[in-house]
């Protein structure tokens, strides 16, 4: 089971790395920001699985903080950009 979950972790991490191509290529700022949002979700998934593998429930709190604060960077981006448009 641990080996299987290790494989899942590697796939999830690779999906983050593949998504980085979108961050680097853009073309718009919103594209880059959106990809970062997806990475937040992937990191939460990685932490949930990691907490199972290493049997440490404390990682769930880290995942919870990521889940709650995922919106902050995004809201900062949108709110700051819209200020200039108005």
């Amino acid at each position: 089971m641990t080996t299987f979950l290790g494989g899942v972790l590697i796939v999830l991490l690779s999906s983050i790395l593949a998504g980085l191509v979108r961050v680097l290529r853009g073309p718009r700022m919103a594209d880059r920001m959106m990809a970062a949002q997806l990475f937040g979700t992937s990191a939460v998934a990685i932490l949930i699985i990691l907490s199972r593998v290493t049997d440490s429930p404390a990682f769930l709190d880290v995942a919870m903080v990521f889940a709650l604060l995922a919106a902050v960077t995004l809201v900062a981006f949108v709110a700051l950009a819209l200020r200039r448009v108005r």
Partner: protein
Amino acid sequence: MLDLVAGLLIALGTVFFVAGTVGLLRFPDIYCRLHALTKADGLGLALIALGASLMARTPGEVFRIVLIWFFVALASAVGGHLIAAYARRMDRTREGSLRHD
């Protein structure tokens, strides 16, 4: 048995994550990518959370996993909305300024 079901759910969730990333890379414009992203990562995390909570030891862990899933789903829905609204407004002002010129 329970482990098997949990493993299947987690594997399925991972497939959704991979699909979301492929959509992020392959779809032509920002609105399509947003669609791929919010659907895929929402569902993928739901399946992984379900699988992980099947393997949880205490009810407290299950509760926290459910809470995490709920917050991520909420944030990703609202984030998708905000990004889409932002992109649309940017498109409009760009068009407007072009017509103005």
